[in-house]
């Protein structure tokens, strides 16, 4: 499954690194393919737990408008707002890297260019997250420094 993909992606161009441990130690510090897979897992698990909470809070619309509005006010709190940027960043990484995994699996050249594809998704992530974070935090920041 996902683990198989990461192993294949990781070994696709690994020979160049074999035995080139900079510190001379024996600790395996992984390769880009491994770390992209670790990040995929971590962001996926985080999103799973958020989804659990999010379905419960949305279910409050079935209780009363007040119950829902009071709970949703938490999402507008500055600290939680910042965590939402983190959530969007995590989901966006998971989505982009998921496309990369699909291309590694199904595109004949995928495994060969997996490293380049990682840098492509990293650039797309930044291009989306910079304006995205701006719009998500704009109101919170202006309210914090006193403007309206």
């Amino acid at each position, binding site marked *: 499954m996902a683990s198989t993909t990461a192993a294949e992606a990781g070994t696709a161009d690994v020979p160049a690194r074999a035995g080139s441990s900079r510190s001379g130690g024996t600790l395996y510090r992984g390769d880009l393919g491994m770390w992209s897979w670790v990040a995929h897992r971590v962001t*996926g*698990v985080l*999103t799973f737990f958020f989804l659990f909470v999010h379905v419960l809070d*949305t279910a409050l619309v079935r209780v009363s*408008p007040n119950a829902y*509005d009071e709970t949703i006010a938490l999402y507008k709190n500055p600290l939680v707002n910042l965590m939402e940027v983190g959530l*969007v960043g995590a989901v966006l990484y998971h989505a982009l890297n998921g496309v990369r995994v*699909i291309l590694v*699996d199904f595109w004949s050249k995928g495994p060969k260019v997996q490293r380049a594809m990682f840098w492509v998704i990293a650039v797309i992530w930044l291009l989306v997250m910079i304006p995205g974070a701006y719009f998500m935090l704009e109101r919170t920041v202006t309210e914090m420094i006193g403007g309206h």
Partner: protein
Amino acid sequence: MTATVDSAPELAAPRSPRRRPARRNNVELYAWLFMRLSGLALLVLVLGHLFIMNILDGGVHRINFAFVAGRWSSPFWQFWDLAMLWLAQLHGANGLRTVINDYARKDATRFWLKMLLYTATVLIVALGSFVIFTFSPDVGS
């Protein structure tokens, strides 16, 4: 995944029928395929949802009961949210199943973690579907 160490010293006769595979069904293949297909659908559903709810037009600050009531008056967004709920929860459940299989060391731990996962999955899918299907803008008034 299916590889088992074949340490039996005796060799089967050449061209004899293959040894019965350890895996008797294709569940893992379908689970693997489901992750890719649901992932592609979620790419549109979830990123669209995050864009509308968090970034567009004031983002999270404009969300309240009236906003939800307005959206769910449209069958399009009801279907969007229902599809997203089912696909995301099943995609996430299968992902966590893989994580549990990878890291749980004892059979009992693995079993109970998966029972907890499946219970949570049924609860979330059922509760979420119930809310979407029975939502009424007049609740509590």
